[in-house]
């Protein structure tokens, strides 16, 4: 008793203590994609090693896939070489690959949960920092570098140090028009982009209890933007309901046994935390970023800050941000002209995100001169959305409806900002150059706020644009 979920999962997966004091931790589930895995397979070959548990590694292709013209060979030779390398590495090693023709391809952090691979009480690793997303199921999920991808392929383990746990509690009901995305942007704004260093974040409180599984994923996804490599929510009935019947979820008697085990992995009521912070849902308004890291965020009705107003250690970055974003201190952020609206990514490219926007965008039109694209997070999301008529609603409103992938979240495929275009984006990073143009500007926000920006051509309060009450 008195244990957190992290304590329990850590204990259950500890293989041994290594000579330097690190834990050799079993990684039950390994997810790979085309960008960070080819070098790892190369290292395995150089060392003459094999994949130890091929059935516990799952692959998809997401970062480099074009979202419009998807016939191979891709027009980009480098991208084409990457998908071929992944296909070959998977075939040679007996790894399940959710390849383009399977209908199951998509962003790795959307595919894992969708397939029921992501499960409570497990450990998950992926060569991608947003692996924290899977924590929404009560898994301990780490973003790792390529050498660690090699380690996991060869040994199904990694050398790790146990993080501390900070309980981040949010209580109460969010006002209409305020979303999970606003909650996590608010948390990062408060705790800072490196406030989570050395911590796992346990997200809890009545707001999280009431959240759907997809809302929980949006929050856990951005843990790393607050410096916390791991973020999780304790599993409950919402989690189990979501998983039931998914392709890789346990079936029949195994299901009942699994649920019993999963329940037991949740943090004990008297668990001890290294730190606890508490916020009120009612204090959170629709939030947008004004700068070049996700902590530089304000409510939609606030003004762009002066560099002199931020704490001294953040001042230089604030000045750099203001210069890069061409924003004027003291002016409202609302009304800033938008060139591109991007709806998608592993943060907000799920069915519920598209449904929420479609509900409001129906009958409305994207403002002339704004390029608006919807990129479903997976082929699974796309096909359900299409069958529900959502694609039609988006197209009629003037959005381009694309194929699944990371797309403009990081601009490794042809979807990129041009010059210093400003993009209203439902993704997770507003770093300089993130969306494919070195001078491109990113403003992070919730999906409905992206839609509001698309319709008005400027950063707007979605509650006013769509009459959300």
């Amino acid at each position, binding site marked *: 008793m008195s244990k957190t979920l992290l304590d329990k999962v850590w204990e259950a997966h500890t293989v041994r203590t290594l000579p330097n004091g690190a834990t050799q931790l079993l990684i039950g589930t390994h997810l790979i994609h085309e960008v960070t895995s080819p070098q790892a397979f190369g290292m395995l070959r150089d060392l003459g090693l094999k994949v130890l548990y091929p059935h516990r590694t799952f692959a998809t292709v997401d970062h480099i896939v074009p979202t419009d013209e998807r016939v191979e060979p891709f027009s980009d030779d480098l991208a084409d070489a990457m998908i071929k390398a992944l296909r070959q590495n998977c075939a040679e090693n007996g790894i399940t690959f959710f390849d383009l023709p399977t209908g199951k391809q998509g962003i790795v952090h959307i595919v894992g949960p969708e397939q029921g691979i992501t499960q409570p009480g497990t450990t998950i690793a992926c060569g991608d920092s947003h692996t924290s997303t899977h924590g929404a199921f009560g898994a301990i999920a780490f973003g790792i570098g390529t050498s660690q991808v090699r380690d996991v392929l060869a040994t199904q*383990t990694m050398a790790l140090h146990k993080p501390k746990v900070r309980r981040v509690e949010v209580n109460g009901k969010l006002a209409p028009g305020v979303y999970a995305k606003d909650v996590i942007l608010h948390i990062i704004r408060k705790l800072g982009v490196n406030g989570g260093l050395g911590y796992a974040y346990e997200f809890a409180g009545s707001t999280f209890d009431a959240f759907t599984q997809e809302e929980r994923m949006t929050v856990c996804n951005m843990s790393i933007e607050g410096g916390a490599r791991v973020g999780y929510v304790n599993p409950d009935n919402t989690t189990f309901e979501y998983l039931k019947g998914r392709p890789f979820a346990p079936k029949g008697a195994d299901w009942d046994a699994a649920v019993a085990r999963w329940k037991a992995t949740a943090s004990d009521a008297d668990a001890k935390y290294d730190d606890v912070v508490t916020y009120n849902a009612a204090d959170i308004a629709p939030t947008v970023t004004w700068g070049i890291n996700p902590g530089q965020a304000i409510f939609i009705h606030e003004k762009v800050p002066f560099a002199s107003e931020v704490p001294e250690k953040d001042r230089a970055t604030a000045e750099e941000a203001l210069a890069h974003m061409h924003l004027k201190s003291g002016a409202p952020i609302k009304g800033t002209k938008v060139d591109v609206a991007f709806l998608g990514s592993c943060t907000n490219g799920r069915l519920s995100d598209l449904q929420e926007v479609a509900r409001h965008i129906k009958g409305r039109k994207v403002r002339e001169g704004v390029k608006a694209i919807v990129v479903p997070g997976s082929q699974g999301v796309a096909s359900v959305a299409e069958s529900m008529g959502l694609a039609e609603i988006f197209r009629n409103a003037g959005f381009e409806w694309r194929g699944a992938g990371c797309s403009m979240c990081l601009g490794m495929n042809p979807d990129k900002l041009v010059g210093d275009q400003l993009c209203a984006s439902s993704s997770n990073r507003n770093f300089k150059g993130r969306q494919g143009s070195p001078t491109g500007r990113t403003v992070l926000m919730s999906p409905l706020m992206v839609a509001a920006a698309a319709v008005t051509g400027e950063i707007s309060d979605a509650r006013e644009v769509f009459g959300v009450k």
Partner: protein
Amino acid sequence: MALEKITQVAGRGVYVPGEDLDTDRIIPARFMKCITFDGLGEFAFYDARSFAKADGQVHPLDDERFQGASILLSGSNFGCGSSREHAPQALYRFGIRAIVAESFAEIFFGNSITLGMPCVIASSEDIRAIAALIESDPAAVLTLDLTEKKISIADTDFPVTIAAHAHEALVSGKWDAIADLLEGLDAVKSRANVLPYMAA
């Protein structure tokens, strides 16, 4: 796999000021379209360097005076963002062998140690003082001594810190964990056997 014991890194320094220098800045994503890490070095800080050029300025990494520097100095939260090992790989292939900053993002730190590239922490005053010394004499050699946990330049010592486990890994030549992990394979299998979801 015997690895070199890393107790000392000596070389000239280069200061790239800034807080929260993220992995997209260290290596923009468009240069990650590759299936090996070879050739990444030239793209380290690519955009920042071209911006400087376009503005008629010179980025420290392109500054004649600091060519060949192998110890990089910077601000806080260095390497935040993505887990891409391409970031430390690019710096390493550029010629960097150690980084001194006020703090490091966790994944970047771990990735760097695995390459045998020490990341040590110094106070912002000390980093600025070292930067000033480099500026006045770019040819001066910096010596990072991991045993003594200090960095020296021109007869002046500055204290540095590094997480105990990383320190141990570097000085004992165990910075790449793979050998240790492979030794535990039997224990791995017995642990996997008791976890129902690991069943084939």
